[in-house]
């Protein structure tokens, strides 16, 4: 056995032993009481936002305005990237080979399963951990495996382009802004939830605006990240031989 591996193993076991003994000797106390702030959220979230999931309630209701601006920042970053990369679809159309048959066939199935799970994450965001951003990111995982496996050119041929995806993202964000703005019409504050939106529709719990935000945010994140992945897959040759200043 080489000396390097031996040293690494010794270091690893020493770290394990030290952390175990430290945990036993120091015995860090787990808090037995909730802090005032936590208590407030535990007791009031369900009444004030009609959502049992406090994290989503904080993100889209208590500090909703903050989250909406955050979404805008990511949108601008993606549009900026698109401007810098000067998406030329001709360059991408040349990449059309992709990986082997086994990878292609299994990716088709896996992408479908990932998208189903992503939808479950996004639609249950106001009921259980999850929400628009994690759901949309999970969809982006599906598209990020599809792009290298089938080659970006194949996607462009099927009519999926960065420009279209950014347009979808723009539409989703506009709708999201409208959901935030609509309560103003009735003289309420911006990003109002329960005073304006119903807690349930036909007996199905939707927690007012929370599920709408989650749905639109997942659409925006999924299309945004797919657009990024698409323009990052422009082959290097497309830039080589260009006019260098």
């Amino acid at each position, binding site marked *: 056995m080489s000396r390097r591996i031996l040293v690494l193993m010794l270091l690893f076991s020493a770290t394990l032993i030290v952390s175990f003994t430290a945990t036993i000797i120091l015995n860090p106390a787990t808090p037995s009481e909730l802090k005032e702030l936590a208590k407030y959220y535990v007791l009031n979230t369900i009444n004030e936002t009609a959502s049992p999931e406090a994290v989503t309630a904080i993100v889209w209701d208590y500090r909703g305005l903050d989250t909406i601006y955050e979404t805008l920042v990511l949108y601008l970053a993606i549009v900026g990237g698109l401007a810098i990369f000067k998406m030329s679809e001709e360059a991408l159309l040349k990449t059309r080979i992709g990986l082997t048959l086994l990878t292609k*066939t299994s990716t088709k199935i896996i992408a479908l*399963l990932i998208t*189903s799970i992503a939808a479950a994450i996004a639609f249950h965001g106001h009921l259980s951990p999850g929400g628009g951003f994690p759901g949309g990111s999970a969809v982006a995982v599906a598209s990020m495996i599809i792009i290298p496996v089938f080659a970006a050119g194949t996607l462009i041929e099927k009519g999926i382009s960065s420009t279209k995806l950014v347009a979808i993202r723009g539409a989703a964000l506009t709708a999201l802004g409208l959901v935030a703005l609509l309560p103003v019409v009735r003289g309420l504050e911006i990003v109002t939830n329960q005073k304006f939106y119903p807690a349930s529709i036909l007996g199905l719990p939707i927690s007012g605006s929370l599920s709408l935000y989650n749905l639109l945010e997942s659409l925006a994140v999924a299309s945004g990240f797919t657009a990024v992945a698409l323009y990052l897959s422009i082959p290097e040759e497309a830039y080589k031989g260009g006019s260098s200043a």
Partner: protein
Amino acid sequence: MMKYIVVGLIVFIVYVSFAGSTSPYTLATATIISVILSALTAKYLVVNERKLMEPWRLLILIYYFFKYMTIIEFKAHMDVVKRTFTMEIKPGIVKVPVNAKSRYARSLIMGSITNTPGTVVVDEKDDYFYVNWIYVSSPDPLEAKKAISEEFENFAIKIFD
């Protein structure tokens, strides 16, 4: 029509089991999502709808799954375990012919070869697989096929071809 139902059903089952609830809200959203996803993806996933109407294919697949995961995997693992102790290895890449036509059948054969220890499919070209093998007992394509993929192929043809 059948392909949309089958793909939608798979999405529905995955969605509901991941959500881990059978509340009316989950079932309602699951229905919406499975309709949308199957409408969008079924044409890419299913080529020959007629095969979905033949339930014995599914039964053979289930039988193959259990046989593969237990007997075939066990034998392959024991073989490699023996070789790690005796170091009796003669690695090399062999050419293996395939007769299966459909892409699902071929993928199943490739996956089955790769998932058993000792053999890995490294490429596929013109009805041949190129398999990296831990102990090349014969470089002859037909002999190699007998040792590596014949059983997988018989099942794959019954299930998908």
